[in-house]
């Protein structure tokens, strides 16, 4: 009879996460060249958008956004985007198709924890790299500087973490649809396409037609990119805006958590019924 160590569930959890993150980090380290290329690929979209808006705003502010505002905004987008990437749907799909889901389902830890650890291990260092590049750029390019406001920065970090959690659960839950269909990743891509506009990736939300913005606010999109960026760049100022933003994040975090639990239990049952 094995001696199962008696310790609190929290300690076990903590150890599991520590090791999962460590393995993920070591693997990422091996793939650092590829990751560098992914990083480059990730920042080209905001750079190109910035380039276009910079040109457009040559003659003056566009709906209240000066060239400098655009510069700050898109640097923020690059940072927050890196922290909120979602790739898990592709992993889930591959694991189910190739039978690698099986051993994950016979371990005493739900598969989502491996994904969370993997996300943190990847996003924390790479976000720091983007941040460093931002600081570097700020030394010789005044346009991208943000005033030193520790309180605001702390709030921005919270908003970014919440945004990352929402987007992770959203991507993971959608990816779990792979238990039913081979097109789960297409659904994630569809959402990504919509988020180009509704998250404020292509342009600050205030530059979109008002009806589109109103529609977006009924969904989670603004809360996973636009809100954290605007906290960071100082566009969010009033208590009401903070309340609406954080409130929206909290609500959508709860919704996607529930949706994840729903899809997971149903999907697990389906997998048990029909196999891979």
């Amino acid at each position: 009879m094995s001696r199962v160590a008696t310790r609190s569930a929290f300690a076990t959890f903590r150890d599991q996460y520590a090791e999962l993150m460590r393995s993920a980090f070591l693997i990422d380290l091996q793939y650092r060249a590829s990751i560098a290329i992914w990083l480059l690929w990730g920042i080209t979209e905001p750079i190109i958008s910035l380039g276009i808006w910079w040109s457009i705003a040559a003659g003056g502010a566009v709906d209240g956004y000066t060239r400098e505002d655009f510069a700050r905004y898109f640097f923020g987008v690059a940072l927050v985007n890196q922290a909120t990437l979602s790739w898990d749907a592709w992993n889930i799909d591959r694991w189910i198709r190739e039978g690698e889901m099986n051993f994950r389902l016979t371990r005493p830890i739900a598969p989502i924890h491996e994904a969370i650890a993997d996300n943190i291990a990847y996003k924390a260092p790479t976000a720091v790299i983007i941040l460093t590049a931002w600081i570097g750029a700020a030394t010789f390019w005044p346009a991208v500087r943000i005033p030193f406001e520790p309180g605001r920065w702390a709030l921005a970090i919270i908003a970014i973490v919440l945004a990352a959690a929402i987007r992770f659960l959203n991507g993971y839950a959608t990816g779990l649809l792979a238990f039913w269909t081979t097109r789960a990743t297409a659904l994630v891509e569809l959402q990504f396409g919509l988020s180009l506009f509704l998250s404020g990736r292509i342009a600050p939300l205030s530059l979109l037609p008002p009806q589109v913005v109103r529609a977006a606010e009924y969904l989670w999109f603004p809360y996973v990119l636009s809100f954290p960026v605007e906290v960071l760049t100082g566009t969010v100022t009033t208590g009401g805006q903070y309340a609406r933003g954080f409130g929206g994040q909290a609500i959508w975090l709860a919704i996607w958590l529930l949706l994840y639990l729903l899809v997971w239990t149903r999907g697990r049952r389906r997998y048990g019924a029909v196999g891979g």
Partner: protein
Amino acid sequence: MTGIRRAMIVLRAFWQLNWLEELQYRGNFIASLLGTVFWLLMAMLTVALYFRHTPRLGGWEYWDVVVLLGIFNALAGVVETVLRPGIGHLPTDVRSGALDLVLVRPVDAQFYVSFRRLDVWRLADVVLGLALSGYAFAQSGRTVSAWALIAFAVTFAVAIAVVYAIWVTLMSLAFWFVAVENMSALFDAVFEAARYPVSAYPGALRFLFVYLIPIAWTTTIPASALTGRLNPSLALWAMGVGIVALGASRLLWRVALKRYTSAGG
């Protein structure tokens, strides 16, 4: 000309083979077509958004920008049909050793690798893109001239050649950096800049995209030719660039291959 004739025969065989293979996956065709239409729509909405705040983009009017967008899509379609499944697969083949099976065949390796695998369904992207350009051209109210069409055909062919040369170069580097799996992402990253006319970018970026990573030219020049902006000397210059690009990439390929085979693979 038995070399060319043989190449044509092999090419035809590849084409038929890929058709047969792909015919099994008709579902994929619908899916990828829907995907292309969706992304094209997103791209057009983006352009519409820009033009909500400005009458011209880098001096180009709305429909001219859409013409360029169509050409971008058509070029992307060529990438998805021929380049990504073909030479884009090289790093995987090198790692798995499948390249060795290619090297023993009596066909030029670069040719074989480039055209063995085709994603024939993605040709729809090319058709869609060119159709969009045609539609936008009509909407722009311009009149079509024979010179413009010829210039467009030539510069579009040059664009394909340049894009191909870039892929060959990137994939040749895969021989040195075998561990890197996403070389093609480097292309994807930079190619995004070709969505808009070069003149739409501000000074520093324009310098980058014109002289350092001349990717924007692949769409701007053919679009300029079609919309009558192109001065003939630039067209000749582009042709020269295309030829040089093909030659230089071929050279790099042979150096890489020589290193691979002499190193024992």
